[in-house]
């Protein structure tokens, strides 16, 4: 047993100082100090939890938690959320062909259109997520396969990425930028939304691709090497990740603030998800200045450029449209949990009160059956 001998510490007990002293010196002829600390008489608060003191707390907790829970529950219920699975697993699905005919090398992207309808309009800002299932972004080999100093714009790391990036460190003898498995597997489906007017015409819904990543990630943690000027030159001599179709400096050539390592889609992807089923923020549909809802009810089409293979690991892909409240996205868990705990506390308070009144008064709560 590991600790069985731990304290066999013949060596370090505080034996009376030394042979030479022969004991005479070890005995203190001093009267101990009469201080509160040394006499263990520090003034102290000695709380005692009894039914009497705890009872009100139960009621207070109940009274606070139940309203919060109801508020949370209502808020969560008011959040509108629409989920569309476009994996294309079964024959009837519009993306079936794309999912079957997938190959990394195909030059011609496969597209499919998924029609859907909204039963109720989405007010205020709408957030568009993509969701993946059975995708282990939290696998250890995956999580550690990145080089944060490279992503922070360190030029040395750009040329020789960290070993953690293996086997996505170099390709064709050239360092990969950005290296690692996470970057390599960047989600590269393109999702577009079209509103089908009742008259049949399609209007593209403007999707904003900024503001989807943490501010600190975008401005501090991720940086392009050598600032934002001419990324093509900066990334000279590096190779694109093997599964990418284009280089990192081509992620968003139209906007230098969203290109290279500071591309927000990329940053969002780089924040590894906690669970194998996850969603990531893809686009934001801003509220229109006029009173019309952001997404009025009616028919829509989701245009998917199907690049991302998930069939091999039996994953699923989803597109989620959701509004957001102060508590974040739709999640009834918190509301239910608060209501439950609040009720339990309240109930316990009542039970305790009864017990306390029945037995406690007579015998100083000593006879409460435990």
């Amino acid at each position: 047993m590991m600790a069985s001998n731990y304290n066999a510490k013949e060596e370090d007990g505080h034996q009376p100082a030394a042979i030479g002293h022969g004991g005479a010196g070890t005995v203190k002829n001093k009267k101990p100090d009469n201080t509160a600390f040394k006499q263990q008489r520090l003034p102290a608060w000695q709380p005692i939890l009894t039914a009497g003191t705890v009872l009100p707390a139960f009621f207070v907790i109940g009274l606070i938690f139940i309203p919060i829970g109801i508020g949370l529950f209502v808020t969560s219920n008011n959040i509108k959320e629409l989920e569309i699975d476009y994996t294309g697993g079964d024959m009837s699905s519009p993306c079936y062909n794309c999912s079957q005919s997938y190959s990394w090398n195909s030059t011609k992207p496969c597209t499919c259109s998924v029609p859907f309808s909204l039963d109720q309009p989405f007010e205020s800002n709408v957030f568009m997520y993509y969701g993946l299932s059975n995708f282990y972004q939290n696998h250890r080999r995956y999580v550690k396969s990145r080089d944060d100093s490279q992503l922070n714009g360190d030029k040395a790391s750009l040329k020789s990425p960290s070993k953690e990036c293996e086997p996505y460190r170099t390709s064709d003898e050239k360092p990969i930028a950005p290296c690692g498995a996470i970057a390599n597997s960047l989600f590269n489906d393109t999702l577009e939304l079209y509103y089908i007017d009742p008259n049949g015409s399609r209007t593209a819904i403007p999707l904003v691709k900024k503001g989807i990543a943490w501010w600190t990630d975008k401005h501090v943690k991720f940086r392009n090497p050598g600032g934002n000027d001419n990324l093509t030159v900066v990334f000279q001599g590096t190779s694109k990740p093997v599964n990418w179709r284009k280089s990192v400096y081509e992620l968003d050539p139209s906007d230098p603030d969203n290109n290279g390592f500071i591309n927000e889609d990329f940053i969002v992807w780089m924040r590894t998800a906690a669970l194998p089923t996850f969603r990531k923020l893809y686009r934001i549909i801003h509220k229109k200045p006029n009173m019309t809802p952001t997404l009025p009810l009616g028919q829509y089409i989701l245009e998917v450029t199907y690049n991302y293979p998930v069939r091999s690991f039996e994953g699923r892909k989803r597109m989620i449209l959701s509004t957001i409240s102060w508590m974040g996205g739709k999640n009834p868990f918190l509301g239910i949990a608060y209501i439950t705990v609040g009720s339990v506390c309240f109930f316990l308070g009542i039970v305790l009160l009864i017990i306390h009144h029945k037995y406690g008064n007579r015998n100083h709560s000593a006879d409460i059956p435990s």
Partner: protein
Amino acid sequence: MLRRRLNRLFGRDERRVDSRTIYVGHRPCPATDTFIPPKFCDNRIVSSKYTVWNFLPKNLFEQFRRIANFYFLIIFLVQVIVDTPTSPVTSGLPLFFVITVTAIKQGYEDWLRHKADNEVNKYLVTVLEDGRRARKESEKIKVGDVVEVVEDETFPCDLILLQSSREDETCFVTTASLDGESNHKTHYTVPDTEKGLESLSATVECEQPQPDLYKFVTFFSLCVVSLRSLGPENLLLKGATLKNTQKIYGVAVYSGMETKMALNYQGKSQKRSVVEKSINAFLLVYLCILVSKALVCTTLKYVWQSQPGQEEPWYNQKTQKEKDANLYLNMFTDFLSFMVLFNFIIPVSMYVTVEMQKFLGSFFISWDKDFFDPEIQEGALVNTSDLNEELGQVEYVFTDKTGTLTQNSMEFIECCIDGFQYKNRDSSTELDGFCVTDGPVSMLQQKEEEELFLRALCLCHTVQVKESTGQEDWVGDQVDGVLGLDGEMVHPAELRGFIASSPDEVALVKGAMKYGFTFLGMESKNMRVMNRDKDVETYELLHVLNFDPVRRRMSVIVRSKCGDIMLFCKGADSSIFPRVRQEEVDRISMHVERNATVGYRTLCVAYKLLSSEEYAQADAGLREARLALDDREEKLMAVYNQVETGMSLIGATAVEDRLQEEAAETMEMETAKSTCYACRLFQRGTELLELTVRTLEDGGRRREERLHEVLLDYHKRAVQDPPPVKTRVTSWTSAKQDYGFIIDGATLSLVFNSSPDSSHYKSLFLQICQNCTTVLCCRMAPLQKAQIVNMVKNSKGSPITLSIGDGANDVSMILEAHIGIGIKGKEGRQAVRNSDYAIPKLKHLKKLLLGHGHLYYVRIAHLVQYFFYKNLCFILPQFLYQFFCGSSQQPLYDAAYLTMYNICFTSMPILAYSLLEQHICMEVLMSNATLYRDVAKNAMLRWSPFLYWTLLGVYQGLLFFFGVRFLFSNPALQDNGQVFGNWSYGTIVFTVLVFTVTLKLAMDTRHWTWINHFVIWGSLAFYMFFSFFWGGIIWPFLRQQRLYFVFANMLRSVSAWLVIILLILLSLLPEILLLVLRKPRWPHSRQVRYTHI
């Protein structure tokens, strides 16, 4: 002798095996053959263990010899070698911390030892070198050097006394620092060395060094002529101090580490507390949990990987090296990785915390002013801090009567001379009704007997008369004396100070003084006694047959003026009675028995007139035995026994030893649950069961048969009679018949030694003992005391025993018991040095056990349970996370959190708690002895509390993980729609964890001093601060900026706040409920609250 001659015949080499030859002053003896300077070690005392050079390697080696440290080192190495989920820093840093702290502590202690060593080694001494006096550092003394020591100096090494400045060729030393005896001992020079030391050439042949302080056999041979045998009375021990003598010269025989003092300095055997055993048991459980967790995860991992597309999906390819690795090797390294991932469940920091708690906690005992005794100006002494909590577990208390229960200030109460009893109370002889039946003897004869008896008292002792050194003491004595005698004329001799190794000798001499016989002191082998007629009688002291606890008697052989040679012997009745005539015994034994039962110390005095032939024979025998190089003790013993026969009994004495203050109270509280051995605790209504030699000798049958019968009989009465035998706990309160049990040494040895059935007797005896409230064992040898302790210690249920004693004869008992307590009494410091704790008075035991012991037990038990609990709920979420990350050993928490959790975030509150907690305040604990029973039998560290804590940990761990898991079913937790990743997940869990675990401790704290407040709230604040700080900077030395702004972003999310609050409350809810519903365990704590506020 023969052996020595043989040795000489076969040459030097063999002789050196068991003896050494020393040339005084390094001058070779012309008579002997070639002079080969023998090699002996130098006089350096080295108590330190390390030097500057070997400190690091040696200390590291010593530390890693501990299995726990070694385990953590292995974990660390695994982390370095194998690709493990957590960086080696996470376990390396705590280990480094532990090792460093321990190394600093040990280094400091060693530095202190170095300093002390240097003080001794660099001390300047005077050495005679070629006739000149030279100052030398003590460490440079070589064996054979002639050393000069002046008064009040300590001897730098073991010396043979060659020359003394005193005329009678003696010197006085005190060995207070060796065995605590502060009386002056007389040592003698080697006879016939009047020759100048400068030209003295002699050899000393002595035994190889051995630790026995009181044994020394040596031959001293002057070159040409004679051979002398020397004994311990010629040897001056290192560490002793020269007194009353201006200066002496001595030749160094043992030096440095070979001195008797250094050889005596041995580490005591380590005593282990029950708590430690519990810790080890719990550790075993946790190790099993750890291994099974790792096994489950490894299995899961391979099951999961066997599904299609999971082991190596396209987005997460293995490296070439990983692909090539052997499957089974992979499995093994995976297993190791999981072990590493979960190894935090066995926290390295627990050991540090426990050790710190014990170390710091023991200061409170030595600081306690209630243990301070103004008389000796000392407080309690803690020799080991390992047993603090054991003080709260004591079930059996063994105490030594003399000096422990009693004050050890003896008073001569009465004597009984030839059947007549004299009481001291009124200073007049009085015939006791008891004695009348014996029939008065003629007055003349009685007077003679009386005087003989008193002379015996005056002569048969080793008392010394204190010389006029301490004038101030004298004045004090004088005042006492005058007042004490109510203005009567004070006999000048009354003012004499007597010094003796045992106080009852003084009491006897003083008693004799009261009857007119005054011991005036020694004058070069002559004892001077002033008799009733104020005449001074002189007796030549021929031999002293020393007292020892085995013989339990001592004798002197003196020659009176008129040439009669007399032997006076005094000793315990059991050792005297067999050596005198039976009819004399019958006359006196009744008194002795009576006095003994009242509680007096009794001694019998006998004498014998030796004819000159007898004396010659005895003298020769004694001398020969003393000369013997081997088996000297045994030979001496044989001669003693031979001489001390056929004596006639003159009388018996009784000396009272007053009970220590509050002894009765202290003991009474003990009986609440424990049994007291060897103390006077028979209350009225206690039925006495006696098992002594006397009861056994009734029928005249063989003792053993009788013993068997009596034991069985008592067993029936004590064990079987009280109908519900097993309900012992309640029986204490009920008015059940209390049994007292008396057994004496002789019978006890029968119980232990009667061969075939001894185990049977033992168990019978034990059962009787356990059913009696009090067991009195009288007339015991030290070893028997230890035997009894050992027997109880190893009995069923292995109860915790405590021995308390003050004398050297209690040492064996003190060492044997779980806890040994020494009383800083008058019988020297032997007991104190060997004890685990030393207190000035017996009454202090009450606070030590009921107060400190109880508190320490509660503290450490809580500490241990809390540590296991907090690490269980720390690691459980990490384990559960493996089910959600493909069993890939992905840690849930960041490495910084993993490392800091036990070191910084949660360690200080529990340490403060374990030092300061007083769930009930001292006064209540002391006034209410039944509370002690609440923690008896390791109540807080048994399996059911452990199970409770474990379940609590499991519950909370599950709650933490799944609460956050459900929250993360939608990871969009911010009001800007952004999502949280896996590090946010871990941070939320960790935040809940730190708060819950700290608040749980806060709920358990019953005694909130400002330190507790500071540490508890400070820890939480520190956690917040650290998290901000750690996540606020891009750390250049980190490979991954995992926590960058994770904590701050978490705090910006309302949902995260809400879930944290919810989970903390929910995890503490069962605890709160239990607290409310549980019967208030300590009912009085409320009433006395005011005392501390």
